[in-house]
């Protein structure tokens, strides 16, 4: 017997759970300004999530998936992407979307039942909208990466998914293609240990999710998903590869979902309080805060100011969100095709009539 092939999966971590450096940082990441910006962004995202969940609890928002405890992953993706790259999200990616220039009120509108929430601006103009059918977005990302190749553009696509999503064919088919065609693409898995109520161990017997890259012939990396430095490091590496036609990368970011799956879920039905409190010991915001305090880059005054300013920002977005009028009823017809087929004109007229009756209470 000889070994036909041999593989290893690296794991990256630079900050201990308590925020102590375990290793010297890569030179590119010895950037105090970036650390502070990263921290501020995570706090903003947490403030945002808390507020949107509160809106849902008071009947002003639809079902919402918080990213509590996983803020570092999306932030790292947002901080490392180039503005003309394309981001193809799943549904727990508010941290990245905000960094891509999607206004807070747009994210609220999407979950608040308004299609206009996906009319992105800023760097996100070509980014895909929030994707609900699990893992389907990964194939779209592969298609966008193919378009970059066809047109010889030096751009990259980053797509994200959860640990549950890695069981789907779309995930495997896309990685397989990314390897075969050497697509400029990065797939980031937010392994938050749960797919609603199903544990990571019940998804796959594979020791790591990162090793699924091996079967596709691409690089697979595992990283501490609550460690901003490690995340930035592996993302910079993967994006540099993608921008230089050096092929795709799969990144498994290990984190923990500190919230319910969505506001419609009750996680106490399936996981213990003990497990949850363990999760809190590793969470990313406290970790980076400890690090910044240790480096004397942050103090309590700044913390107070930050919290106040995040609340203010979120509050003004809430005001925009709650003041926007709904679209007219016929909007459901107006973006179905470039031009409305004649066959639908009658139905469109009907809904206008129906809406006016409804307004009059008829």
């Amino acid at each position, binding site marked *: 017997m000889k070994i036909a092939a041999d593989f290893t999966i690296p794991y990256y971590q630079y900050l201990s759970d308590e925020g102590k450096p375990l290793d010297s940082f890569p030179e590119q990441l010895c950037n105090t300004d970036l650390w502070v910006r990263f921290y501020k962004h995570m706090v903003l995202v947490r403030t945002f999530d808390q507020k949107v969940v509160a809106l849902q609890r008071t009947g002003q928002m639809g079902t919402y998936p918080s990213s509590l405890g996983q803020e570092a992953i999306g932030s790292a993706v947002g901080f490392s992407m180039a503005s003309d790259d394309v981001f193809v999200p799943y549904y727990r990616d508010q941290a990245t979307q905000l960094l891509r220039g999607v206004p807070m009120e747009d994210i609220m509108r999407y979950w608040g039942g308004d299609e*206009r929430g996906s009319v992105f601006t800023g760097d996100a103009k070509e980014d895909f909208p929030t994707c609900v059918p699990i893992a389907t977005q990964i194939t779209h990302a592969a298609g966008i990466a*193919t378009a970059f190749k066809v047109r010889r553009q030096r751009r990259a696509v980053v797509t994200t998914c959860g640990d549950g999503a890695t069981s789907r064919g779309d995930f495997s*088919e*896309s990685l397989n293609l990314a390897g*075969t065609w050497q697509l400029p693409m990065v797939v980031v898995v937010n392994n938050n240990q749960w797919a609603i109520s199903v544990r990571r161990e019940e998804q796959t017997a594979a020791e790591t999710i990162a090793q699924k890259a091996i079967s596709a012939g691409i690089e697979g990396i595992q990283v501490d998903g609550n460690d901003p430095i490690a995340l930035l490091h592996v993302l910079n590496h993967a994006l540099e590869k993608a921008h230089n036609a050096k092929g795709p990368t799969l990144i498994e970011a290990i984190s923990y979902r500190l919230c319910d799956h969505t506001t419609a879920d009750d996680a106490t039905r399936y996981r213990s309080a003990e497990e949850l409190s363990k999760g809190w010991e590793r969470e990313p915001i406290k970790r980076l805060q400890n690090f910044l305090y240790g480096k004397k880059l942050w103090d309590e005054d700044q913390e107070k100011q930050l919290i106040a300013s995040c609340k203010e920002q979120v509050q003004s977005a809430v005001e925009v969100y709650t003041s926007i009028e709904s679209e007219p009823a016929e909007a459901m017809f107006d973006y179905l*095709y470039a031009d409305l087929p*004649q066959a639908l004109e009658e139905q469109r007229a009907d809904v206008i009539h129906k809406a006016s009756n409804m307004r009059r209470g008829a």
Partner: protein
Amino acid sequence: MTQFQATPEPHKNPISGEQPEIETTKATLVEAINLALAHSMQHDENVVVLGEDVGTNGGVFRATVDLKSEFGLRRVMDTPLAETLIAGITIGMASQGLKPVCEIQFMGFIYSTVEHIVSHAARMRNRTRGRLTCPMVLRAPYGGGIHAPEHHSESTEAMFAHIPGLQVVVPSSPARAYGLLISAIQSPDPVIFLEPKRIYRSVKQNIVNNGEGLPLETCFTLKQGDDITLISWGAMIQETLEAATKLEEQNIHADVIDVASIKPLDMTTILASVERTGRCVIIHEAAKTCGVGAEISAQIAEKGLLSLLAPIARVAGYDTIMPYYRNEDYYMPSTQQIMEAALKTMAFQ
């Protein structure tokens, strides 16, 4: 809107959509597909072709033959064997402004694309309020009658016709295949383009390879008559025309309508014809229940009931699994069945 306005005339020959005989190439339906693809790729560098075996092999039916050697690897892509993926990457490419034409080798393997077609392609414009769109074509050979293995003979166009945001197109002659595919590729919205493989090579026709498209929202009137309206699409147009010719021997003159655009449906043309004839038979290969024929008859009942002189008749496939090929002819609607239905409709007082 007047319900019974005249048929919007398709280009060229106002009746059939077929072209006058100048500077033409003789082509079968599958060759016409190839010509339309090549012409589109020649004149628009955004057009790319992808699918299983579409490259070097030129497709299992040869619809994409020579495209790879002419346009290269970047624009003619042999994909891995993964239909979900093919649909998904097609959507991604389309969002970037490419005009991808993907091939699903047989309609029997289209089902794993359905999630992408329904949940993404059909909705992309709507869910981004027009920011991202999906100008893609998904081509697939479909239908029975070629003694193919299991899963290679079904007609499930009604599944797609049910989905808001899609267009579903079925050509029934080489010239219409050419013109409709040209338009499908240039359409700003997704088109499911179903090719009746039974007639891929059955007739040759003159094609003007000038890149002119045919409208996607209209029926084509293939034959005019005032006594009865025969409505069909795809390969069944052959039997329908044959029946119409036989009916002429009995001095019954049929309007023969090729629906061509299954979605959106051009009911204006159909209703105008039924208004004139008062009698109609709808013919399709797909299973009868919830077939597109059901939709057409419902709309005739809604808007043209008072012009009917006889009940609407449907000649369709049975509500059974398509038999394997030894018995497939029992399943396929026949000229004889169409004749019988037409004569019964004519006899109704």
